């Protein structure tokens, strides 16, 4: 069995499972944010008349709303807080960061765990070797809360092997964007994506993390890399070794044949996902020169210290273009602390950037980030569907922090290699 099959077998009390089996598995961690938490808690209150079995396994993070813009949002947070206290679940309040970075940096995720969440980017936790899946509000309310279990169909695995060394100007996020285009939206429906190969092995944990972030975009169920010493070291330091014992993982050479795709990244140019969907991926050069009014480092996969460092690399000693507002939204309090200690807060402030509280930033413009018709933003966010950030006639482009920084500098979409 591979990692996912081993975890599901252990969590469902079976010796073996195979793709297609439906199992009822013990859930180790359930995560939700302020919006999904509100909806899930409403469903639970209205329809489920059973106690919450393991409150200590449930974490709620306020990440879409970092400060309530209106009374309605204040009521949502108030309701969530009361609900969290009543059931004794863990709560990370406003300013903690985006849900996925916050729960990892707070030690809630570890290798071998079964992690569920209503947020569609929950599979990102496969970067730590967890089986991490997005499931809906009703499953959480009706099964995870009262029983700490969920049903799963064991997925077939698509192994994605990456080799090569990235050229200057390209980053792991460019690889992730490019892979969405290669596999296609809905190109891997219901599958588990296993990321492997020399390129993946060499990545640091929070760069590796960008790969399973694309799981939902290609339609897959979960994504993961088998944990190595880097992951174990991080997990041990967080006291989050999770549920690693007792797994029965065999190396790929001794497993039944799986679908494998191989990619070489050594000639990969900087990539950009253009409206209207995440799969509309092109080399940055194809749309260079397109004016932008907004730029942002933030989102469920952005705002890591790695992104902030890349941004600083482009903007050090320079000024953001006068036509552009550049938002910097740290992914977690830890990331902001690192930026402070490294002098990047001042450096980017001097360059004209605006700092926002750790959160999901302009994600769906719940708290910020609405655009008027005809405006464009380039960001490290994960979604670019029309109407998600204000007007349906506004445009969202998704790219690496280097490309976002270069574009903020020039006032138009810019290949970072032109300014480095």
């Amino acid at each position, binding site marked *: 069995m591979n990692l996912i099959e081993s975890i599901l077998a252990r969590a469902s009390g079976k010796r073996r499972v195979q793709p297609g089996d439906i199992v009822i598995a013990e859930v180790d961690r359930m995560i939700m944010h302020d919006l999904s938490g509100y909806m899930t808690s409403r469903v639970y209150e209205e329809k489920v008349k059973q106690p919450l079995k393991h409150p200590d396994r449930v974490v709620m993070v306020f990440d879409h709303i970092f400060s309530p813009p209106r009374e309605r949002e204040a009521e949502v947070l108030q309701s969530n807080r009361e609900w969290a206290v009543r059931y004794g679940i863990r709560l990370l309040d406003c300013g903690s960061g985006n849900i996925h970075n916050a729960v990892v940096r707070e030690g809630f995720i570890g290798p071998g765990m079964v992690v569920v969440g209503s947020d569609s980017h929950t599979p990102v936790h496969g970067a730590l070797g967890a089986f991490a899946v997005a499931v809906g509000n009703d499953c959480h309310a009706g099964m995870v809360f009262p029983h700490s279990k969920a049903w799963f169909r064991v997925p077939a695995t698509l192994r994605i092997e990456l080799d090569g060394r990235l050229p200057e100007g390209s980053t792991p996020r460019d690889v992730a964007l490019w892979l969405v285009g290669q596999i296609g939206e809905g190109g891997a429906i219901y599958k588990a994506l296993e990321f492997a190969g020399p390129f993946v092995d060499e990545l640091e944990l929070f760069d590796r993390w960008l790969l399973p972030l694309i799981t939902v975009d290609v339609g897959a169920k979960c994504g993961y890399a088998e944990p190595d010493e880097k992951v174990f070291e991080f997990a041990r330091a967080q006291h989050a070794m999770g549920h690693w014992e007792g797994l029965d993982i065999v190396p790929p050479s001794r497993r039944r044949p799986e679908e494998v795709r191989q990619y070489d990244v050594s000639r990969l140019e900087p990539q950009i996902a253009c409206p209207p969907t995440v799969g509309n991926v092109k080399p940055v050069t194809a749309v260079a020169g397109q004016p932008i009014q907004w730029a942002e480092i933030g989102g469920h996969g952005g705002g890591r210290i790695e992104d902030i460092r890349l941004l600083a690399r482009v903007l050090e000693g320079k000024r953001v273009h006068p036509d552009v507002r550049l938002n910097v939204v740290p992914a977690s309090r830890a990331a902001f602390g690192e930026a402070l200690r490294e002098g990047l807060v001042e450096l980017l402030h001097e360059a004209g950037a605006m700092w926002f509280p750790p959160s999901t930033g302009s994600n769906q413009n719940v708290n910020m980030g609405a655009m008027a018709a005809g405006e464009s933003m380039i960001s490290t966010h994960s*979604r670019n569907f029309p109407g998600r950030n204000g007007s349906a006639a506004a445009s969202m482009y998704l790219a690496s922090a280097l490309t976002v920084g270069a574009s903020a500098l020039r006032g138009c979409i810019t290949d970072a290699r032109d300014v480095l």
Partner: protein
Amino acid sequence: MTDFQFKGRCWSVGDFVPTDQIVKSHRVFLRLDEIARYVLEDANPAFAAGVKAGDVLVAGRHFGQSSGRAIAVRALRATGISCVVAESFARTFYRNAFEVGLPILEAPGIHAATVEGDVLEVDVPGGQVKVQRTGQVLQGNRTDPFLLEMLRAGGIIAVGSRLVEGDK
């Protein structure tokens, strides 16, 4: 009709419609009957005002992609449609549909085989769709019996405890 067999006039949307175009995020805190008035407001502006109970929604590839929120399914059900037939579904939408209790069917070829307003006969357990205008019958993908049972029960909240008990 019995056991998830439906006959209704169809509405149509294209490929890759995300959940936040089914229900925009700033509407998720409204009451469900209010949300229903805005369903698919950008993807098919005539739908919410014109939909009648029992109509069928036809969609393209990877319908309901991106966010996994069940409100998208709940809002579609609140419009009164009987079912959704798509080329393919995003897995979170697919899962949510059975967990919330909205019949759906994956039927590759459905988009090209229909025009908006066609009357369709949909047999969810049998996995078939008949287009009345042309007489064409499409064979869709089989639905797992486990999911059909959940659908018959009315969703996961109705069967959650039974699933856990049955597993012991």
